[in-house]
């Protein structure tokens, strides 16, 4: 167990350094002059130089790289040139919003995807199966940005049932920050009304984000269920007279859940990446939005920072999946 943890941590550190190096190189291949941008439109050359020096942009790229990697080891992700703040601080500020969104979306994906996948598998090649499959593939095929806008217009603008964007209404003061997740914090603070408003705000973006994920969970779960339902031990269970519902819901599901879990782990990282689009549409103040606006201003330290954070969560999520695997599958536990 300790060896496992140690190996995981080592992988994590290695991957993080790799990601940092990768994104650093990628983002610096082309010229962009963020210093001039933040210096303002009328700034003179010496003013621009002042800023370049301040942010170490006057150094050669290899030098900057060495400095960056050196800082990274000490946990310093550098400084955003646009907001002048430490990237780590900003990322930590925006990450909870994104995580909250991803968690809710993931929950929707699992709660809807797994049962639908089971249903589809049990009634394979029937009308239910076809409808679910087309529905699920539609989820992958719908452009998130387009779908988001359409939902916004339908449910927020036309019907007025849900808010257009943001996490909370303007005048609602957020509950005291404990986890940064508004849904959790408002419950901790005992503010049910805030919880309810926050929930109303998160519904649309979470649905948009969850759709493709729901689709792949459904698809994997369906495929696995079909395979498991044909397996010998299910035939045996039937032969021994165990009720069909119990076979599907307990015997088969547990086996089919393993690959589904792996998919959930993968999709978690993918979702974090997709927040780039969803957050733009819904003005969701998370790291995706932060990454886009930074990228558009050639402010690359935050871009690297966000990529790192996403990579970090991705690896953590997959480690959790590994643990869950071991928990479910006794064959791995003893190994």
């Amino acid at each position, binding site marked *: 167990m300790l060896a496992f943890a140690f190996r995981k941590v080592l992988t994590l550190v*290695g*991957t993080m350094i*790799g*990601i940092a190096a*990768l*994104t650093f190189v*990628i*983002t*610096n*291949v*082309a010229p*962009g002059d963020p210093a001039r941008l933040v210096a303002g439109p009328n700034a003179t050359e010496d003013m621009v130089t002042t800023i370049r020096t301040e942010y170490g942009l006057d150094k050669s790229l290899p030098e900057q790289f060495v400095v960056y990697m050196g800082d990274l080891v000490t946990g310093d992700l550098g400084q955003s040139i646009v907001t002048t703040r430490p990237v780590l601080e900003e990322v930590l500020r925006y990450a909870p919003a994104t995580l909250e969104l991803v968690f809710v979306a993931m929950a929707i994906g699992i709660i809807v995807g797994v049962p639908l996948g089971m249903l589809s598998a049990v009634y394979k*090649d029937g009308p239910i199966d*076809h409808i679910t*499959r*087309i529905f699920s*593939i*539609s989820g*992958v*095929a*719908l*452009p*998130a*940005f*387009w779908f988001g*806008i*359409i939902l916004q*217009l339908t449910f927020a*603008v*036309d019907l007025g049932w849900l808010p257009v964007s943001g996490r909370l209404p303007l005048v609602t003061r957020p509950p005291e920050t404990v986890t940064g997740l508004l849904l959790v914090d408002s419950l901790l603070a005992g503010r049910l009304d805030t919880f309810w408003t926050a929930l109303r705000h998160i519904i649309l973006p979470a649905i948009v984000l969850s759709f493709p994920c729901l689709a*792949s969970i459904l*698809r*994997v779960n369906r*495929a*696995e269920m079909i*395979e498991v339902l044909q397996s010998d031990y299910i035939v045996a269970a039937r032969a021994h007279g165990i009720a069909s519902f119990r076979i599907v819901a307990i015997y088969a599901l547990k086996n089919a859940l393993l690959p589904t879990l792996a*998919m959930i782990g993968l999709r978690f*990282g*993918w979702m*974090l*990446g*997709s927040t*780039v*689009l969803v957050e*733009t549409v819904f003005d969701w103040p998370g790291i*995706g939005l932060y*990454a*886009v606006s930074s*990228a*558009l201003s*050639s402010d*690359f330290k935050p*871009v*690297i920072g*966000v*990529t790192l954070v*996403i*990579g970090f969560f*991705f*690896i953590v999520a997959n480690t959790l999946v590994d643990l869950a695997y071991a928990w479910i599958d006794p064959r791995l536990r003893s190994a």
Partner: protein
Amino acid sequence: MTTPVELSRPLTFRERHESKIRQWRLYAHMFGKSFSSMLGLGLVALFLLLAALGPWLAPYPEDTVGAFNMANKLMGPSAAHWFGTDEMGSDILSRVIIGARTSLWIGLIITGVGAIIGVPLGIIAGYRGGWVRAVIMRITELFLAVPGLALALAIVAALGPGITNCVVALSLVWWPGYVRLVEAKTLSVKEELFVESARSIGAKTPWILWHHILPNCMSPIIVKMSMDMGMAILSAASLGFIGLGAQPPAPEWGAMISVARTYMPDWWWYSLFPGAAIFLTVLGFNLLGDGLRDILDPRSRDR
């Protein structure tokens, strides 16, 4: 058991390829049975048709290369303009039709480059094992740990917006999926007896890779490429939406929506049709891929 009669005359084509013909008929039969697969095939066929015949089908082809007519701007769907017009008075139908070509091009290049980089790496990693595999897979995992869209965003932001840069960026982030798929498949194919059998008759590694491993990896690769066509088109459109994709006046669906979103909801047709075009195309490729998987590679999983 019937004993086939030995024939002295040369065999006809039909006789020689009987097995193959039967196999294809079986594929066609299985594929045709599934409604969703046929729907996918239909959508993809329509898309390819639009891409092939676009300039002849588009009612106002000049509108796709920058012609404008401000007097006609933002007109709703009508007999003259089935899909309405945009903010420059250009015909949206024409731009959507020609957009198929852009999307096809984007999809082909991205998946093509992804496969060309990814498949050999995957086969080598899976077959060679040892440190070669370790290095390839570590790098692959590195790329996989960062969501493609985020990485592509960073690349395009650095290179500057544009369809070419967008394709370059997406190709750069697309290959790891193939590496992993092919590596996993190679690992299992490698264990098959026929690979050992080939080794036992003295086949060299390249021969084994080319004649034994690759053909047995093809099914999942074809399935993935089919699905990826759709996903690549979608990703390119996403970058277009952020404003980092295709250039005007080149018609690209994502870029059209990016502009069109500011015209919602009053000029709904503007974003509706390009959006629907993306949706149906991606849906088509995914359904097709799903159908292909059912017949070619029924046991593989969605990874």
